[in-house]
């Protein structure tokens, strides 16, 4: 009589099989996995088993040890696998709860290994430049957006889709009908809603694994240091010179890179300011122009897709910085002309006399004048 392909074993027996080379599967949910799992296990939640088992365990003749929390789900999964032709599947009786109670070791994921087997990121995981390590890095990343507007909308969506773990949003505004020509993170039925809340809803619907931190306030000299302190990278989508200088000076003080973009009518500009590695915004423009010489988009207009394209280029630079791949736009300003369909680039240099990052600014008392005071000086 042929033995059943499915058995229940004790943790001790399971451990022996694992040491002998059995494939080890964890059939729980990602949040359970994150609290600890057996070393060498692959996460395969029950709902994903039929579709993914052939990839995870390609040889039906190889013995498989499968466990869950208490042994119920894993026994069901074992029978399911037997029906698919697997010849030796053992379920750990009592599951990881008994395993731990017996003092056997578990691994607490230092990052979130769930991402390494998450089908959501399959197109990232197959590329060596991202892969499981890069995806885990994206999951750990904390990126702050100044503004959930025209630039922030596409950048937020794509960074969330890419699996960036934490997105902070600083915006004090509410959604207005005139925003919707380009601010695609919001929606018609959210007019009047706080932009941070509206953006959080869209992001959560796209990728619930991304945590959104809402900072419903205006960026000022008083709160900027506190706001940026918890983040490793800032995406600047502000629309006034004052906030751009406030952000720049604080980011230089804190050593946090800023991915910068601005748009006007049919044109956009983009650069990456990495403090002390390349120039900062003040190296480029030490003082803002007087208001009458610098009309904003509300006066001059902007083609809706222009912030869309520039925001996505910001998202691209942010991902490059997080993963440490490619050549970020440090010390280079990219100019896109939508009507010409052309990109051009100019070289930016650090200004040794820059009031924010120059030699004189590094010493004690490197307090920087707000932009408005410099402008009127």
């Amino acid at each position: 009589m042929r033995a059943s392909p499915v058995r229940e074993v004790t943790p001790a027996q399971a451990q022996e099989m694992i040491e002998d080379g059995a494939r080890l599967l964890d059939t729980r949910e990602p949040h359970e996995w994150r609290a600890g799992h057996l070393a060498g296990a692959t996460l395969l939640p029950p709902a994903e088993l039929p579709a993914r088992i052939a990839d995870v365990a390609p040889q039906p003749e190889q013995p498989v040890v499968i466990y869950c929390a208490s042994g119920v789900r894993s026994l069901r999964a074992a029978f399911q696998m037997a029906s698919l032709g697997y010849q030796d599947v053992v379920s750990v009786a009592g599951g990881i709860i008994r395993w731990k109670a017996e003092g056997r070791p578990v691994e607490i994921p230092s990052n979130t290994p769930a991402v390494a087997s998450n089908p959501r990121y399959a197109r990232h995981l197959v590329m060596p430049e991202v892969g499981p390590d890069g995806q885990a890095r994206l999951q750990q990343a904390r990126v702050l957006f100044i503004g959930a507007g025209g630039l922030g909308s596409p950048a937020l969506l794509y960074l969330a889709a890419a699996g960036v773990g934490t997105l902070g949003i600083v915006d004090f505004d509410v959604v207005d009908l005139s925003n919707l020509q380009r601010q695609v993170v919001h929606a018609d039925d959210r007019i009047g809603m706080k932009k941070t809340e509206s953006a959080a809803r869209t992001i959560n619907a796209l990728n619930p694994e991304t945590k959104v931190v809402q900072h419903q306030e205006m960026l000022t000299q008083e709160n900027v240091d506190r706001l940026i302190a918890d983040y490793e990278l800032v995406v600047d989508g502000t629309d006034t010179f004052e906030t751009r200088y406030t952000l720049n000076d604080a980011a230089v003080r804190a050593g946090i890179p800023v991915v910068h973009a601005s748009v006007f009518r049919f044109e956009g500009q983009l650069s990456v300011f990495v403090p002390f590695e390349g120039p900062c915004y003040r190296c480029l423009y030490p003082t803002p122009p007087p208001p009458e010489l610098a009309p904003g988009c509300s006066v001059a207009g902007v083609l809706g897709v222009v912030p869309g394209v520039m925001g996505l280029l910001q998202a691209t630079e942010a991902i490059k910085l997080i993963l440490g791949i490619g050549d970020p736009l440090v010390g280079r300003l990219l100019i896109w002309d939508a009507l010409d369909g052309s990109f051009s680039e100019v070289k930016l240099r650090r200004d040794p006399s820059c009031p924010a990052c120059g030699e004189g600014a590094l010493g004690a008392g490197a307090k920087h004048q707000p932009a408005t005071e410099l402008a009127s000086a």
Partner: protein
Amino acid sequence: MTMVRIPPVLRAQAGDSKQVEAAGDTVGALLEDLVGRHPGLREQLLDDDGGLHRFVNVYLNGQDVRYMDGLATAVREADTLIILPAMAGGA
């Protein structure tokens, strides 16, 4: 004549042109010729002493002229000059 690229924010003062031609052996001479042809640009580009405003950058073949010889930087006809004032729009 050297090709000068006019940024969108200044085009209204340059006959709505994206590119205009100007003559001069140096960046300074070229800008003087430019504002002579388009007087509306003078206030936007140059201060009362004829110097370049600090919120306007000028790039000769992609290089900031401030890190070359400033307004004295030599210009040839085949060169391209890009004028780039600070822009804040986040839309």
